[in-house]
């Protein structure tokens, strides 16, 4: 396990918010776009990072990616434990720094009563003066997705009691890197004050969160924007999300197969300028097929000559096809 130095060189961005009692709510349409989600601190922090780094040439924390992870609060053995699901990190993202942000209140210990002596009738019981504020400990454990154990202890930090309620940030880079190296992408954090927990905290905008600053080595590849942003209704669940846009229909997307005549060279909409061939290789149009995965790989398009050799080297192994669902196709045709 790692005892991480209490405060190492956090990325400037993280320090930008540390010590804030409550950052001013961000203005602008980005906050509006987040809706109620913009009220919690992680959204405020990410919006500030966005405003800071969306100016040209700036690089967040020396990389090109910042991922935030909200906590899921659970009660384990009557203690509040926050779980973080780090599985959305991409393999191509090299972790530069990881920080744990949490809000801590000063904890004044209750004055302790001294048990009265039996013989001294109705003697007034003395109260001991309150001792020093209790020290808190941050315990980090990591576990793989479907294990019931408490997980492997990855790190413990002693926290000095804060003079007043404020947000703090701790560098947990070694913890996150070690957990990812071992493939344990579920992290738990427990604020342990030693004494009995004064009641389990309820989910609040003061929930802790993790930021991971990374360098995505795949971001410069052609079409990297499509790999992370070209997807279909990401909140596809049984019932549409309350905040979901009206046109994100809950019905599963139907897969649209097009005639793959070999690697595509550009992003033209397939099927607009050529009817899918009905040759031996034509892939039949399946209405009932669902998307195998929300992310579709892109295919490069054959040059004019290659297209003439249609069907000769169809399905070249490395080629990729650009798929659109019917709704997008109709919209495109209309346009």
């Amino acid at each position, binding site marked *: 396990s790692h005892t991480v130095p209490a405060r190492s060189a956090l990325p400037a961005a993280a320090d930008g918010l540390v010590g804030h009692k409550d950052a001013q709510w961000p203005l602008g349409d980005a906050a509006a776009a987040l809706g109620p989600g913009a009220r919690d601190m992680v959204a405020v922090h990410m919006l500030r990072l966005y405003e800071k780094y*969306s100016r040209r040439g700036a690089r967040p924390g020396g990389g090109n990616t910042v991922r935030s992870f909200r906590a899921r609060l659970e009660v384990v053995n009557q203690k509040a434990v926050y779980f973080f699901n780090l599985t*959305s990190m991409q393999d191509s993202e090299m972790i530069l720094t990881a920080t744990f942000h949490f809000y801590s209140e000063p904890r004044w210990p209750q004055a302790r009563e001294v048990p009265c002596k039996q013989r001294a009738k109705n003697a007034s019981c003395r109260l001991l003066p309150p001792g020093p504020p209790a020290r808190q400990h941050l315990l980090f454990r990591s576990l793989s997705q479907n294990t019931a154990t408490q997980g492997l202890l990855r790190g413990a930090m002693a926290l000095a009691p804060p003079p007043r309620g404020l947000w703090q940030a701790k560098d947990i880079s070694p913890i996150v890197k070690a957990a990812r190296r071992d493939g344990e992408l579920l992290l738990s954090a427990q604020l342990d004050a030693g004494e009995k927990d004064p009641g389990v905290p309820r989910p609040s905008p003061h929930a802790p969160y993790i930021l991971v600053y990374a360098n995505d080595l795949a971001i410069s590849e052609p079409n990297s924007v499509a790999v*992370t942003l070209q997807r279909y209704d*990401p909140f596809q669940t049984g019932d549409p999300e309350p905040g979901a*846009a009206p046109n994100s229909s809950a019905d599963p997307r139907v897969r649209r197969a097009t005639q793959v005549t070999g690697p595509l060279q550009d992003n033209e909409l397939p099927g607009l300028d050529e009817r899918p061939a009905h040759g031996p290789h034509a892939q039949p149009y399946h209405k009932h097929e669902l998307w195998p995965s929300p992310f579709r790989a892109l295919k490069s398009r054959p040059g004019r000559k290659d297209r003439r050799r249609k069907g000769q080297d169809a399905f070249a192994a490395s080629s990729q096809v650009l798929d659109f669902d019917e709704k997008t196709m109709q919209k495109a045709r209309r346009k």
Partner: protein
Amino acid sequence: QWDEPRVCSRRYLKVDFADIGWNEWIISPKSFDAYYCAGACEFPMPKIVRPSNHATIQSIVRAVGIVPGIPEPCCVPDKMNSLGVLFLDENRNVVLKVYPNMSVETCACR
């Protein structure tokens, strides 16, 4: 668009993520100025189209007709800018990525 110059140059294009169906998970920006390149790279090419050496040679070969079927060089982006995008990943966590080569600064014949 009709009064656009014939020669290879940067043309205005504003991309609205709602038009390409990505607005549901992109928090910000909702749209951005991407621009695009269009126009001729005819012989003789003016300096303003900043031709590469190869493009210069190709356009001469095409002009003198030594080899039939040689096309004129293409008008493509030369300098490009990155764009920071704030979006929700599939677990509804907020992510910031700075994508390179998202908008055109200058065009050139290649």
